[in-house]
């Protein structure tokens, strides 16, 4: 069985391997062991703490094959995108320039460095091994985290967001970076993504413009990729969009990848999730009538999620005995489900 569960210290080696595989696509999953260790430790502390207001917590999940203990993917949530420091993005503002005599109101687009999203909760560090890309498990990582956030509302803000990777080629050349960021930094995209994952964000305020950047003056190759998602993240993007996330007017500052945002209450998952009791499937249930459910198991502050086949009747979710065994339920567990 494959489950989504909080990362543990014993996952470090596996995470290191995944971080290496994932490369620069996942800037919030650093390759450096010490940084990974920090991230896992911070996650453990975050889960342990009782929280009644989103703060510096960051929750890291891993996708584990429970028979072999293999780690096959990751996904994290930051309680606040900008916890100890601002979370920067470019906001695509429209400025109207008016001339009375010429009777013109031109609409001029300009990118403004801002940190409007600092108070949003942030989904990040999504990665799954390529072999599972076509399965339901990307869905597990993404919706599993949303389910976690739904069940523990006090730990998160009301507004959520996810930064998706923008366009970059295999050599790590990102057109938006080449025509924008490079002018200010003079370094490669990979390099700045590494700084971004390992340094605090002060360097952004030091190096990036506080003047709005007029979009019309940005090279067309870079304009063309603004708000476009990297093909590797297309699935992520559609999963989140289906839930109600929308690409607003923010883009990522280095590669101009889309930033999706949503109000918690507007998400379909939040509206449809229900608490259930698990029961064993009775004989007379037809296997064909079984449906796929995402279930989340909360016990105290801990949480895990997995996908199961079952049948829902009222607040009873019927699963196979085998599945129920695997879940290792205790009487303390609260179980939540949502039909996929």
């Amino acid at each position, binding site marked *: 069985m494959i489950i989504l569960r909080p990362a543990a210290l014993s996952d470090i080696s596996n995470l290191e391997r995944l971080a290496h595989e994932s490369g620069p696509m996942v800037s919030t999953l650093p390759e450096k062991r010490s940084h990974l260790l920090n991230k896992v430790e911070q996650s453990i502390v975050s889960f342990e703490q009782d929280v009644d207001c989103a703060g510096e917590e960051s929750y890291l999940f891993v996708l584990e094959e429970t028979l072999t203990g293999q780690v096959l993917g990751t996904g994290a949530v930051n309680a606040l995108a900008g916890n100890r420091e601002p979370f920067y993005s470019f906001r695509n503002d429209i*400025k109207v*320039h*008016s*001339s*009375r*005599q*010429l009777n*013109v109101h*031109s609409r*001029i687009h*300009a990118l403004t460095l801002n940190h409007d999203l600092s108070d949003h909760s942030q989904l990040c560090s999504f990665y799954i091994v390529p072999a599972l890309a076509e399965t339901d498990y990307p869905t597990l990582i993404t919706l599993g985290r949303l389910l976690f956030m739904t069940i523990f509302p006090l730990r998160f803000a009301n507004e959520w967001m996810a930064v998706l990777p923008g366009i970059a080629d295999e050599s790590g050349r990102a057109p938006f970076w080449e025509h924008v960021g490079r*002018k*200010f*930094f*003079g*370094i490669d995209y990979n390099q700045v993504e590494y*700084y971004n994952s390992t*340094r605090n964000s*002060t*360097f952004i305020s*030091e*190096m*990036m*413009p506080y*003047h*709005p*950047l*007029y979009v*019309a*003056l*940005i090279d067309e190759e870079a304009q063309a990729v603004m708000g476009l998602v990297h093909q590797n993240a297309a699935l992520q993007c559609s999963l989140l969009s289906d839930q109600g996330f929308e690409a607003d007017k923010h883009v990522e500052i280095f590669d101009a990848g889309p930033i999706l945002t949503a109000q918690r209450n507007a998400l379909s998952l939040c509206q449809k999730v229900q608490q259930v009791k698990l029961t064993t499937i009775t004989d007379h249930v037809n296997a064909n009538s079984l449906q796929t459910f995402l279930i989340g198991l909360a016990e105290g502050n801990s949480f895990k999620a997995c996908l199961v086949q079952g049948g829902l009747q009222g607040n009873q979710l019927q699963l196979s005995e085998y599945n129920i065994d695997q879940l290792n339920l205790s009487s303390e567990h609260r179980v939540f489900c949502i039909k996929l």
Partner: protein
Amino acid sequence: MMFIRPIQKEDLAALLQLAQKTGTGFTSLPHNEAHLEQRIDRMIATWEGGNTLADQGYLFALVDSETNTLVGVSGIEVAIGLNDPWYDFHVGTQVHASKELGIYRQMKKLSLSNDHTGNSELCTLFLDPDYRKDKNGQLLSKCRLLFLAAFKDKFPKRIIAEMRGVSDENGRSPFWESLGRHFFTLDFDQADYLTGIGSKSFIAELMPKHAFYVDFLTPSAQQVIAEVHPNTLPARRILESEGMRYEGYVDIFDAGPTLEAYTDDLRIVKKSRMRQVTIVESALLGEQPLLIGNEKYQDFRAIICNSQVDAAHIYLSQAEADALAVVSGEQLRVVPLFEKESTL
């Protein structure tokens, strides 16, 4: 003989004819009768003392005394930007540096500015192509500084001159193509014409209000910032030799440089001296060409000639004195025409 005098109401037809000979990039003498007539009226009102500061301006006519024809004009606006705002781009430096990353970047940026509000402006210099010889260009340009030296109290303490920027043979400005075009759907020619008839501020309203980085312009646009059109190079050299300098401001359309100076720093203001007129039968040639002007506000005159001059007198022929509208015993303001010449 060529001499300078104030523009007159009767000059309208000649001025209109002259305006026809200008081309793209010469914004301040549009071929537009109503506009030119209004301009002449405003200049005359200034000389007659009837204008508020915002409307004061002077226009000088270069006249060929043989034919009594107007062959060139040059002007001074006394205080710009007091009716419509006066815009240019300030070329500033911005440093982005991060000690931790070990990165230091120095970037040029352009910001819309009204910093020259209230300054005087040297403007509208145009000389009939047939007369582009014999120091006529020098006279037309420098007579303004001589006038300024004579009537300094009528001017603010700083003076500027906008130099025409680079454009190609089709009138395309690389700077406009890279910047203005994105904010405005006009061609450079049209924008240029609107500017000439005083609509510059309308256009400026549509231009980028926030500072932007030079690095985001095309290379050809970057190259022409603060550069003048090849045809304007002589005019630039004249003003620079007189003490005007590019100080980091450029035109918002073509990025031509704004030259500027404190009037007190102008060579002609510092070095011009008063000499008494002595009329001689046959004037001897002195050692250097001199710029000579009278001190009559409403009947200002200026000429260039190689007169003999000593510590107190200047020796003129009757024709020269006539051109200058002076008689023996009157005072004239005299300065070597060129910077390199020795002082008086």
